[in-house]
């Protein structure tokens, strides 16, 4: 692959992904910590940017020189295969140097001062930091200490904004719009950063949200997200445009949140029979990895209604857009 190809693609990039010029992006943040802080216009801007990268990802040569010379540190203080691979791929397709800084391979562990972690990262002199941490608020605390942009790749039960944005991107591609869509989110809302970030963004975008779970899997005052609360799956999905199933951690049963996976599945596993209750065009999302037969029946997961693999594909493009936009914010370019 020669430089010629690169330059050609760079020119294409310039025409497709910089409609707003170098200065004054319609995006007012130097970090991406949660969807709570994003306006509808900012979410739309990120999704528009993602479209351009989505197109690039369909090409035979997917690598563009956009972030050549930029170093991205992916810091995962909690095990993750999917999100981490997605970020790594996104960074590499942008030609950035991607470094992994993981808890498993270092002395960093739960209990280290976040300030020390931040200082260590700052001293390495990277340009962008992606962080996944088991403690809620960790990304925000690191961002406070660090001058370079921080992207939250999931902090405890708090937020997972890149997942929410890729979910929205997937829905927007499926429906051509987001406003007015009815979405049901089913499962362990209490422990889900994906649900929180989606509920906040969906409210901002004027979508109708419903949540459904046994009361033991709902957090206190959850209705303040502006969603309707259901405990009965068929009622929750009646007439909805999209159903987002959340992964059930097997250990929830032993903690007493529900009697058994068997009983959970009988009441909350999305089956083919349920789909008739939703809108005819209803699509299925799941942040993965899926528990077949627990929260989602195998044939539903594999059905044409399922966009689960489209989400994975979208994730790379959306993360490319986020890395690109935040690097511009951070470097002032």
């Amino acid at each position, binding site marked *: 692959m020669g430089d010629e190809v690169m330059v050609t693609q760079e020119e294409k990039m310039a025409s497709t992904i910089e409609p707003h010029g170098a200065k004054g992006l319609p995006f007012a943040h130097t970090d991406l910590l949660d969807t709570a802080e994003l306006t509808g216009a900012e979410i739309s801007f990120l999704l528009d940017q993602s479209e351009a990268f989505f197109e690039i990802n369909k090409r035979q040569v997917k690598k563009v020189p956009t972030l050549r010379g930029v170093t991205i540190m992916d810091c995962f203080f909690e095990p993750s295969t999917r999100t981490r691979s997605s970020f790594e791929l996104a960074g590499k397709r942008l030609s950035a140097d991607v470094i992994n800084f993981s808890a498993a391979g270092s002395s960093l562990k739960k209990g280290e001062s976040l*300030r020390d972690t931040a200082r260590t990262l700052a001293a390495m002199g990277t340009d962008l930091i992606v962080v996944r941490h088991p403690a809620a608020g960790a990304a*925000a605390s690191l961002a406070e200490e660090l001058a370079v942009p921080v992207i939250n790749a999931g902090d*405890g039960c708090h937020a997972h904004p890149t997942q929410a944005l890729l979910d929205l991107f997937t829905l927007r591609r499926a429906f051509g719009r987001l406003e007015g869509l009815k979405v049901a989110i089913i499962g362990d809302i209490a422990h889900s950063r994906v649900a929180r970030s989606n509920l906040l963004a969906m409210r901002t975008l004027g979508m109708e949200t419903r949540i459904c779970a046994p009361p033991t899997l709902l957090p206190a005052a959850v209705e303040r997200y502006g969603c309707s609360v259901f405990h009965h799956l068929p009622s929750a999905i009646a007439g909805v445009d999209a159903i987002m199933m959340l992964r059930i951690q097997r250990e929830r049963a032993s903690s007493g949140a529900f009697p058994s996976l068997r009983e959970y599945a009988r009441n909350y596993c999305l089956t083919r029979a349920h789909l008739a209750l939703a809108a005819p065009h209803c699509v299925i999302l799941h942040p993965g990895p899926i528990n077949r037969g627990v929260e989602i029946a195998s044939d539903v997961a594999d059905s044409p209604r399922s966009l689960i693999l489209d989400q994975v594909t979208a994730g790379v493009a959306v993360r490319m857009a986020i890395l690109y936009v935040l690097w511009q914010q951070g470097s002032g370019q």
Partner: protein
Amino acid sequence: MFDLVLKNGRVIDPAHGVDATTDLAIRDGRVAALGAGLAGAEGIDCTGLVVCPGLIDLHVHLRDPGQEWKEDLLSGAQAAAAGGFTTLCCMPNTVPTNDTGAITRDLVERAVAIPVHLRPVGAISRGLAGKELAEIGEMVSAGAVAISDDGCGVQDGHLMRHAMEYARPFKIPVIIHPQDDTLFGHGVMNEGWRATELGLAGIPAAAEEAQIDRDIRLSALTGTRLHVAHLSTAGGVELVRRAQAAGVAVSAEATPHHLLLTDADMPAYDTHWKMSPPLRGAADRAALVAALADGTIQAIATDHAPHAPQEKELPFDDAPFGVIGLETCLGVVLALVRDGRISLADLLHRLTAGPARILGLATGHLAVGAVADLCCFDPQAPWRVEPERFYSKSRNSPWAGQELTGRPLHTILAGRIVCRDGTVVEGR
């Protein structure tokens, strides 16, 4: 001729209903006279100041022995003197635990050299483990004024019943940190919208109320006085109020932070706002303030809980519970008077005679002949909380950077000036 005369202050002695602008004279470490035109070897002009009994904090953590990097007897006593306190009751969750007469005696002996009266609280159970009784009789003989497993709820109801029965002949109150661990779970802040929004695990009010309810019943059963530490919920207030109306010997305290702050006020993930019990909702706070005013809550206690910066810099989930309060207490709670929630005399009662009565102490009032423990504060003085200027070794205050109104200036301990113009002059 007196040793020391506090001139022209507004002398408020809540225990005796005194509120008059006058001189107060001290001789031989005791209150000698109140009246106009008193003369002494030394005089302090207290014009514009309130002169009241030295404040009594029946719930502090001095981290000594064992965790002196957080606080020690001297730094804690200096923080107390700067805050207008003359008596502290230190909780037994030290390393080792104050669960024997020897540790209590060591504290009492070392306290001779610090600028505060120290009244230790002994443990209920050995090592605060909740399994077997600590040596309650030995600790009381050595000077313990109460017993408590503060920091832990006593999970075993049978042990708690025995602790209360056993304590009765010693005429000391049993102080509870009401916490049902199974309901508390892994919670780190109040259960509610703020916790949900921040993705943090909640602590339900029931975790506290379940044990308050149990221990009120055990107090009724055993006849032992019960004192509920750091009441934080409206439901807890109601339980205490009903028990008092039914004649059960139960008292309660509230902290400045629970009286003034709610979970909704907490800056996101600020570990200087993490304490147990956690800050609750607005209705809970209102119930606490009302209970403080009507006397259901007899004492304000700071639950001064120092932690070093490196301990509080951890993620919110991992940081220890606890905030400090000795040096900010008065400035914080005086806001309740300005807001018309409680009279100044009643507020001072909850900081002096109220806790003295709970513990059966002879101090907390200004009768002629009483030990001259005094606090002189300027109720109008505005000041900014600068943790780096605290006498405490720790900085974990939710009021860092805030403007408070009302500041202790002079603190007198048994007739000795230990803090003058806001500067501690003993033990430096």
